[in-house]
């Protein structure tokens, strides 16, 4: 039977059926005619012919069955029927689709992350055999990079690994003729890397070994495709054009292939330069090549075809031992390790934790999906009650149990497909929302728009899976029809309570979960409010700041200090500006500075004579401008310049730590043994510097003139709304130096809200918990709704009888919703218990969260009961509106 005919037959059903009917009709006519000729009366002839023919409908069915794939025909039939009946019940359809869509969306999102982190290879050749080599030392147990000298040794004598490359990304100022200069990140990489890792260029040439691995190098750059598109408009004539990187001319020699943004997976840089030019980009660049303890370079290497990872690691252990022996000062207790590149994501330093997080999150979302499916299964069971008669009639007409199951399963898959589409849309659009919550910081994180075909495939597969899982149990249960019983008048009997136990547990669980999650959301919000009211130790109102890096622009110290002075003069006279100042470290930012102090005559506990303390280099008057009072002594002044004796302003915590019981003013400390003595001239109270939850932290301030460093942040206090000053501040910088890029232009409120050390964790926690709480509540409501609906449907006759016997509507309402309310109360009680536990745990970890909140807990319980009451009330109401006579006759 040809395939073509079979497929065609699917679409020509009606035509083929009518042709067949006509043909058999004509056969009957012939037979009748023959019978008449044999002498029967026309009526008898017709009857005889029909008898002789046999069961017309049955024969037609037999012919029809062999025409095409019968199961496919039936499936199409069921499909049409399913879409029709779902369209007639829009409420049910909507609830089911949304419930499943949510479960699918969170799974799709986590899958996208897992896929990107673990499955997608780096865009190089043979990515499976690429390993990332990193070092651990006694000081930092976190993985970090290697020194260039160590890298060269590994490359020269390694037997198990080959094709080593080293790279390092650093911020830089990129200026293109005719465009505003921009602060970007540039990656210095050993120039044979493009060839070794098989990274192609779409334009020009890649970096070549002749461009110089060791300084001096050839000032050439290969742009990333992204930069070429965004900054150069995909102009093919960029090759051989000159650009300025850190005010030094570089020639563009190539554009890398699209999709390759760095040799590190999680990063997107603007351009690649050969390692030899590194000292031209950074004043301390030479040190990166000279010293064995300049452990900055990230190293990648391939496993040799005949070597295994274990062999590579064994060899690295030998190398590490040799380094420790040969260079004991720089390598105390060093360990080297190689892991497959894919396992070192997003950054080698956090690669220890990521697999654990991945498993945890995957488990969580799988649980969410399971709960969504269970809920939908509940809803389907409830609906199946209404269709019992229909299923019984189908069975009576000859449908096998398998056929019924197939039909019901197809319905649930038909629901799951749009859920998958909606879920995909949700996942993709909310990925954009997540970027809002990425902690702000000075790091070139790579962002790709979500939505690859991987994700499509996964979503489609999981939708079908979800459809089957949700539908299988209700289908199995509903298809077990007893034809004999069902056809009798009086169907609608109540099924035994044993089957309900699982469903009841589920509803209780959902109510409990939503109770806990809602309470957590409330706690986060409270914590956020408390944190915002916390005394930060400085005045954060109406502050706006921007950062700039003068050393990348080629300024020497004298010129930079002059620039800062001029800028401050101009900014201070701008309308709307109250005060302004420069600082290197702003509270709660990530560029923390710490120095070792060697105090003279300490009375406190100072082991080994030195202590590591955090500091910020500031402009004179900055401390008072920020609103930090000077308790005793004075603030740093203009007179504290390079010719004057070095001074510092310290906080009370530092005074207590180093000179308890003595007057701190007038004491001295040094920044290295035998260095110049710095005198303490001022004392401030202890504020918050790095994290909201920190213990009182020792901290001190030095002046730019005496301790120059870059980058620096200009902080301006506005008279009114700080955001309005953004444009004019940028312009003011431009009038002083048109080529100087400005970055990090935010108000203090935005900075606090976005900083991972300040409010961001609370904000994120509150939002996520709130979203989950609402969704958990919706799920719980739909579960309750299903339970009560089921009860109503299966007891329609009973309700009719009761009403006929004189029960009032109130009695019926109470009867029907009793079950649902009971489940809610049990769930809320369990939820409360867990919530107290969760709150106690959270109060230890987070700021401002108390163990028991007398307003929040009862509030949430009340909310739960209220919504549950509505969920129970609605189907109950439907029950009471039925006229008792109709209910009694209801079939």
């Amino acid at each position, binding site marked *: 039977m*040809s395939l073509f005919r079979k497929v065609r037959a699917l679409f020509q059903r009606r035509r083929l059926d009518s042709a067949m009917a006509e043909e*058999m009709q004509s056969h009957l006519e012939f037979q009748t005619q023959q019978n008449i000729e044999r002498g029967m009366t026309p009526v008898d002839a017709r009857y005889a012919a029909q008898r002789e023919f*046999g069961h017309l409908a049955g*024969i037609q069915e037999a012919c029809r069955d*062999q025409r095409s794939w019968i199961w496919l025909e039936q499936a199409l039939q069921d499909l049409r029927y399913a879409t029709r009946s779902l369209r007639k019940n829009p409420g049910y359809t909507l609830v089911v689709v949304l419930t499943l869509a949510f479960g699918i969306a969170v799974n799709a999102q986590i899958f996208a992350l897992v896929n990107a982190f673990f499955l997608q290879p780096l865009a190089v050749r043979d990515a499976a055999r690429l390993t990332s080599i990193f070092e651990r030392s006694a000081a930092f147990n976190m993985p970090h990079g290697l020194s260039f000298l160590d890298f060269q040794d590994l490359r020269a004598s390694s037997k198990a690994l080959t094709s080593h490359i080293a790279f390092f990304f650093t911020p830089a100022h990129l200026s293109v003729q005719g465009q505003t200069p921009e602060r970007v990140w540039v990656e210095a990489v050993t120039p044979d890397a493009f060839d070794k890792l098989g990274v192609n260029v779409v334009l020009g040439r890649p970096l070549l070994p002749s461009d110089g691995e060791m300084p001096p190098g050839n000032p050439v750059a290969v742009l990333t495709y992204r930069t070429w598109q965004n900054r150069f408009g995909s102009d093919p004539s960029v090759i051989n054009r000159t650009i300025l990187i850190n005010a030094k001319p570089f020639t563009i020699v190539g554009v890398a292939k699209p999709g390759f943004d760095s040799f590190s997976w999680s990063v997107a840089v603007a351009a690649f330069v050969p390692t030899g030019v590194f000292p031209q980009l950074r004043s301390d660049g030479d040190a990166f090549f000279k010293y064995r303890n300049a452990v900055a370079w990230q190293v990648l290497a391939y496993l040799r075809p005949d070597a295994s990872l274990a062999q590579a690691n064994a060899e690295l252990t030998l190398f590490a031992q040799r380094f420790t022996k040969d260079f004991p000062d720089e390598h105390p207790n060093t360990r080297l390790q190689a892991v497959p590149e894919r396992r070192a994501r997003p950054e080698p330093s956090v690669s220890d934790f990521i697999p654990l997080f991945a498993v945890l999150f995957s488990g969580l979302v799988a649980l969410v999906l399971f709960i969504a499916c269970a809920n939908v299964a509940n809803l389907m069971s409830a609906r199946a009650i209404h269709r019992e008669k229909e299923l019984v009639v189908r069975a009576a007409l000859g449908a096998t149990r398998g056929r019924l199951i197939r039909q019901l399963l197809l319905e649930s898959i038909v629901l799951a497909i749009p859920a998958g589409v909606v879920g995909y849309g949700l996942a993709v659009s909310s990925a954009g929302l997540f970027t809002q919550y990425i902690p702000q910081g000075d790091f070139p994180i790579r962002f790709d728009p979500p939505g690859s075909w991987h994700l499509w495939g996964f979503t489609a597969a999981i939708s079908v899976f979800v459809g089957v899982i949700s539908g299988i149990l209700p289908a199995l249960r509903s298809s077990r029809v007893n034809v004999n019983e069902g056809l009798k008048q009086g169907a609608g009997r109540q099924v035994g309570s044993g089957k309900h136990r699982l469903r009841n547990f589920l509803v209780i669980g959902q109510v409990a979960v939503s109770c806990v999650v809602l309470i957590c959301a409330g706690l986060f919000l409270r914590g956020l409010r408390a944190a915002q009211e916390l005394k930060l130790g400085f005045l954060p109102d109406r502050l706006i700041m921007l950062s700039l890096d003068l050393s990348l622009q080629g300024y020497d110290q004298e010129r930079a200090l002059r620039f800062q002075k001029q800028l401050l003069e101009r900014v201070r006279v701008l309308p709307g500006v109250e005060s302004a100042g420069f600082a290197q470290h702003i509270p709660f930012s990530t560029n923390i500075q710490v120095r070792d102090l060697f105090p003279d005559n300490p009375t406190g506990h100072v082991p080994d004579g030195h202590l590591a303390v955090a500091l910020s280099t500031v402009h004179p008057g900055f401390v008072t401008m920020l609103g930090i009072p000077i308790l005793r002594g004075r603030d740093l002044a203009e007179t504290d310049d390079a010719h004057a004796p070095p001074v510092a302003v310290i906080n009370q915590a530092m005074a207590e730590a180093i000179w308890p019981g003595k007057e701190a003013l007038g004491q001295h400390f040094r920044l290295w043994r035998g260095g110049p003595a710095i005198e303490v001239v001022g004392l401030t109270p202890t504020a918050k510097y790095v994290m909201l939850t920190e213990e009182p932290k020792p901290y001190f301030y030095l002046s730019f003139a005496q301790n120059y460093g870059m980058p620096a942040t200009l902080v301006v206090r506005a008279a009114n709304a700080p955001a309005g000053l953004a444009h004019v501040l940028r312009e003011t910088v431009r009038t002083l130096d048109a080529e100087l890029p400005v970055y990090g232009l935010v108000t203090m409120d935005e900075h606090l809200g976005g900083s991972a050390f300040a409010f961001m964790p609370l904000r994120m926690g509150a939002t996520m918990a709130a979203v989950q709480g609402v969704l958990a509540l919706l799920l719980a409501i739909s579960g309750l709704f299903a339970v009560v609906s089921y009860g109503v449907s299966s007891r329609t006759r009973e309700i009719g009888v009761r009403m006929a016997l004189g029960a009032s509507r109130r009695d019926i309402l109470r009867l029907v919703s009793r079950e649902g309310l009971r489940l809610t109360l049990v769930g809320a009680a369990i939820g409360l218990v867990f919530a107290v536990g969760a709150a106690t745990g959270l109060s230890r970890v987070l700021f401002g969260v108390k163990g028991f909140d007398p307003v929040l807990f009862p509030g949430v319980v009340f909310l739960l009961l209220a919504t549950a009451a509505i969920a129970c009330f609605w189907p109950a109401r439907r029950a009471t509106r039925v006229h008792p006579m109709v209910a009694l006759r209801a079939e």
Partner: protein
Amino acid sequence: MAKEKPDLLQGTLDLLILKALQLEPMHGFGISVRIRQMSDEVLQVEQGSLYPALYRLEDQGWISAEWGISENNRKARFYKLTAAGRKQLNAETENWERISTAINLVLKGA
């Protein structure tokens, strides 16, 4: 509703139908009449077997069908042997003769 079992083996029915159509095209009723005639009223094909067989043979491409007018001016669907059908007829006839000879041998030998 169980399917009615054909009185003859399916393959044999196909053979008979093809043979009946060897001379000239015929409609369904005519085919059943012809088979009855040719077998001296012994083989009476049920419609429940005939029409499924006809459709099957048509799908397999051994007969082709066309609407036409019968002797007494009635519209009917006429079946005709195709070239492939003729070949199939010969092949099946040979096959049948081989098998029936073999069966006869067995029966005589017992």
